[in-house]
């Protein structure tokens, strides 16, 4: 009888250990998912601010009409789908990066620097571009961490990730316009 009891306890003990391990794993993954949703929201916010800075530049009246139109169009595309993610969004952000690069020629930058409004717009844009880079880097770091943890067999076998879709890194060209940094 006592032998049966000790077997029962041994099995119970093993089950408790397994349960603890699984809940620890689930908590770790949950913490990562929380971090991920945060970094994505931060990236969204930063992208919106960059697009707004681009709109401001386009409306400043300090760029020539055609360039301002291209820039305003690219910024509007980016602002139109702020919460959408995927290829379309990445394409829009790529276009905005390209439009900024096109708009900010060395001459345009020096014209802008000669007025107080221009300096203000440039400073805001430079800071927005840097922050987009940071936010994207940190988001992709979080994605890498999540993907690594979700590849482990316990997570897959016990379906600990639930129905949360597998995250993907956000890839687009986020270089600051080359001539923006000119002093």
């Amino acid at each position, binding site marked *: 009888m006592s032998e049966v009891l000790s077997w029962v306890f041994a099995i119970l003990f093993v089950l408790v250990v397994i349960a603890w391990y699984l809940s620890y794993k689930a908590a770790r993954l949950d*913490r990562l998912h*929380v971090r991920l949703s945060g970094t994505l*929201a931060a990236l969204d916010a930063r992208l919106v601010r960059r697009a707004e800075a681009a709109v401001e530049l386009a409306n400043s009246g300090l760029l020539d009409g055609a360039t301002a139109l291209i820039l305003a169009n690219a910024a509007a595309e980016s602002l139109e789908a702020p919460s959408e993610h995927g290829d379309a969004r990445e394409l829009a952000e790529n276009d905005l990066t390209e439009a900024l690069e096109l708009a900010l020629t060395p001459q345009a930058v020096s014209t802008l620097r000669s007025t107080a409004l221009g300096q203000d717009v440039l400073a805001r844009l430079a800071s927005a571009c840097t*922050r987009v880079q940071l936010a994207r880097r940190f988001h992709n770091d979080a994605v890498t961490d999540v993907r690594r943890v979700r590849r482990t067999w316990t997570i897959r076998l016990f379906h600990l990730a639930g129905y949360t879709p597998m995250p993907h890194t956000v890839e687009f060209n986020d270089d600051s316009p080359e001539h923006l940094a000119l002093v």
Partner: protein
Amino acid sequence: MRIGIVCPYSFDVPGGVQFHVRDLAEHLIGQGHDVSVLAPADSETELPGYVTSAGRATAVRYNGSVARLNFGPVTASKVGKWLDAGQFDVLHLHEPVTPSVSVLALMAAEGPIVATFHTSMLRSRTMQTAYPIIRPSLEKIAGRIAVSEDARRTVTTHVGGDAVVIPNGVYVDRFAGAPRRSAWMGTPASPTIAFLGRMGEPRKGLPVLAAALPEILRSVPGLRVLVAGPGDPEEVTEDWPPEVVAACEFLGSVSDDDKASLLASVDVYVAPNTGGESFGIILIEAMSAGACVLASDLSAFSRVLDGGTAGAMFANEQPDALARTLVDLLRRPERRAELAAAGRHRARLFDWSVVADDILAVYETVIEGVAAAHLEPQGRWNRFLRGGAR
């Protein structure tokens, strides 16, 4: 902003990470932020007001060198108390992969965490054994900073993911305003060059300079070589030809002010380092002081010198290349002035005002991310699990 900074190395001894932490903290305090630094220190060591001591450090072997660190349950509880008392908006850990207060803080902390990786020489064996233990904690770091491209490579290969490169800062104005000293200034007939660093350490490159000197002295007989840094001159110069020894003046260890004056006074500052440099802060100090810099073409140096536009470079470990470039520089004062001016301009990029702004942008990004995550609706189950994870 309430900022908590953790430095793993003892404030009793000087070191790159300690200086970085001290300068960053002082700059942020100057900008009106509320900064507290946690670091090991002896009770006798005089600490600035913003530093909290985590207790006495012990010398331990880790990652192939002896470091003064502290750890253990008493330290862990001190770290916990410091975190509770601080209520920081952001926690900034330095070198999170050392057995130290940094890793203890990482394990205990919740909320926005930024970590800076300084070292570029992590051993893979150390990493393989340490990783399973601290990997779950490392996942809490929301923003990773590397101080150089080499440090960043360490992060990408060992930690996974990526890091933003934000270089070490320099207080450019402290060097830019250094007075020149006539004893160290060269004349057209007798120009001066400077070498700084531990003489006995071959990777600092003094042997390369010594090998190049006979050739240089043939072209510029009046040259004076000012050697500053710890070491025994007699031991180092043992096998040197007598005319080379005669051209050298050994200044021994110099104070920070003297170092700045020396860099500001000489015609050319030579950095013949042969390797193991992940950054090259001394080059930036020399550029700030207005020296014309001649450095070996290590990748770290090349990045600081912008590929040779802000200072001259020569092929690493090649005394004849060093001799050729140096003689050319000594004969062309207008070229020296040009490089010095370009160097002064470039040094501004590494000033603490620029570097600290980048670090603050990281803080803000990370805080924003964590704040956004907490706005998400949370189930009880989630909260229960997260509570259990502590």
